[in-house]
């Protein structure tokens, strides 16, 4: 007998297990600088950056079914764009927002061309454009600094003219900046994915033909997904220059495009939190393995192979399946 509805009908539950877990996590992230040192903050920033990068990638791959191998191109546009702007005018928001928008613009232009294809041809096309951006970063010396990249990028203060000006010199402050920006961006992505827009993406993934019959322009929605992915890649890249004080061509290389792919695969493609969990695992695996051996990529490769062979849902869907199995079913009791 189903007693579920009666049990939950009493009053709306504000503190669900899921929500309290997220609240706890955010609290832990806020407190991190108090417990962790410079290095912990540095790694945490990198996890957040990869989370954003992978989150955007997954809106394209997990929700729309397009596997892009050129996301590093937009990541690099964000990074180089932000670096150039910071060198021009040392204002953090100016650089980050500018870099993100530049990447979005690049994604719009290239997206119009890329979404003409799907499946392997789409992957190859994004790879080609991504590597074109890489070649420009490497060879266009006057603008990008070539091999050496752009150096001496200031970690500019957070300025809103007439309102505030906060120095970002310490790692802790920059960490809080990245954290706030990331939480905002993750929140926006969550709203997007659970809006009619996100449902349309999934509809296209499930049945392209039927969505087209209902009058949905499949191409237009693919382009929207592509631009969103480009914006998130650009934002992730734009957070990089102020952290490292330098930007070099490898950020644009196709092997960098693989990072969000791996993070998403680790965490789980079908779950919203998958890429974020995956980004965390990516750096944990790296951090743990490099303590024992410098060859951590071989272990990452083995993990990838095992995941692809046996656990294509990733860690998050594995965990939720466990959780459901452990919890007594409502109909059982």
């Amino acid at each position: 007998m189903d007693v579920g509805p009666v049990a939950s009908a009493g009053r709306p539950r504000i503190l669900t297990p899921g929500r309290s877990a997220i609240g706890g996590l955010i609290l832990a992230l806020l407190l991190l600088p108090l417990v962790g040192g410079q290095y912990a903050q540095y790694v945490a920033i990198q996890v957040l950056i990869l989370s954003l990068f992978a989150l955007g990638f997954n809106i394209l791959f997990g929700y729309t079914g397009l596997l892009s191998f050129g996301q590093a191109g937009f990541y690099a546009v964000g990074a180089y764009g932000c670096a150039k702007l910071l060198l021009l005018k040392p204002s953090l928001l100016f650089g980050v927002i500018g870099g993100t928008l530049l990447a979005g613009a690049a994604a719009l232009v290239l997206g119009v061309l890329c979404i003409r294809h799907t499946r392997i041809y789409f992957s190859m096309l994004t790879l080609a454009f991504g590597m074109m951006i890489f070649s420009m970063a490497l060879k266009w010396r006057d603008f990008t600094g070539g091999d050496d990249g752009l150096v001496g990028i200031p970690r500019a203060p957070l300025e809103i003219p007439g309102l505030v000006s906060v120095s970002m010199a310490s790692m802790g402050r920059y960490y809080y900046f990245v954290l706030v920006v990331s939480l905002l961006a993750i929140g926006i992505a969550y709203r997007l994915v659970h809006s009619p827009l996100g449902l349309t993406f999934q509809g296209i993934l499930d049945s392209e033909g039927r969505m087209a019959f209902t009058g949905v322009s499949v191409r237009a929605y693919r382009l929207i997904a592509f631009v969103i992915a480009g914006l998130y890649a650009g934002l992730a890249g734009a957070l990089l220059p102020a952290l490292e004080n330098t930007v070099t061509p490898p950020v644009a290389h196709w092997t960098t495009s693989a990072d969000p792919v791996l993070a998403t695969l680790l965490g789980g493609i079908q779950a919203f939190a998958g890429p974020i969990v995956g980004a965390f695992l990516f750096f944990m695996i790296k951090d743990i393995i490099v303590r024992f051996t410098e060859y951590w990529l071989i272990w990452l490769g083995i993990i990838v192979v095992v995941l692809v062979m046996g656990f294509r849902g990733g860690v998050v869907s594995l965990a939720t399946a466990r959780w459901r199995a452990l919890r007594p079913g409502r109909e059982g009791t």
Partner: protein
Amino acid sequence: METLAFQGVVGLSMAMYLWLISAGLTIIFGVLGVINFAHGSLFMLGAYLAFTFYGLLGWNFWLAILLSLAGTAVVGWVMERFFLRYLYGVDEAYQLLLTFGFVLIMDDAVKMIWGGVFRIPDIPTFLEGHWPVFGRPFPVYNAFIIAAGIVVGIVLWLGFERTWWGRTVRATASDREMANAIGVNVPRVFSGVFMLGAMLAALGGALGTPVRVVSPGLGAAMIIQAFVITVIGGLGNLKGAFVGSLIVGVLSAYGTLLFPVFELALIYLIMAVVLLVRPQGLFAR
């Protein structure tokens, strides 16, 4: 004028390495429908094995090449038989990801076993020296590479068009189920084709050992070039891969001479344009 003509011949020898690696990639895609990211790593493995047998141990040049082909074929067989075989039914994105996992494993495994970059071993004595070409000395070894590429092309063409084995493979490529129904052992054909592809990659790597530096980054660099070529020629089109190799090889030889700044970008631009205008490749029937 002579410089231009000479550079063309240099490009031709470059094109032959590219042809060997893209031929393997093309055959595997044409028959199995898998884009093999690890193909560049197989090329690298072939180079390292040949280097070990020939450069370090000082064995016979031909024997070293044969052993490197055999070793790489075994690795290819393991990849297909125990991993890829179980993924033919799922989304092709996962096949891509699996082969990318192999890239990570092989790149690091090569670093673990062989360490960093090596010196280049000597060219075998019978391939030493230069021939005058367009008034300039042209290394005999490069001529040997060009000949090897052409021989491989002819052997592949004869093998696919004129033998029973080739017909079986072509039948499997065009319709798996039907081939299965008339008694072709499809899984065995797939394994065989994957090993053939791996050996072609290894041959490219092994032949390059005496003239180019073998380093762990080799795989990632080669696979991208091979992708460009297979896309220009049409995915799964062997003849297209040959012409595509010539285009990319000769173009990058002239590109480094005439417009060094945009040479790299130009190749990717061509790849993108072909994908947009003629996704079936320039040489599709």
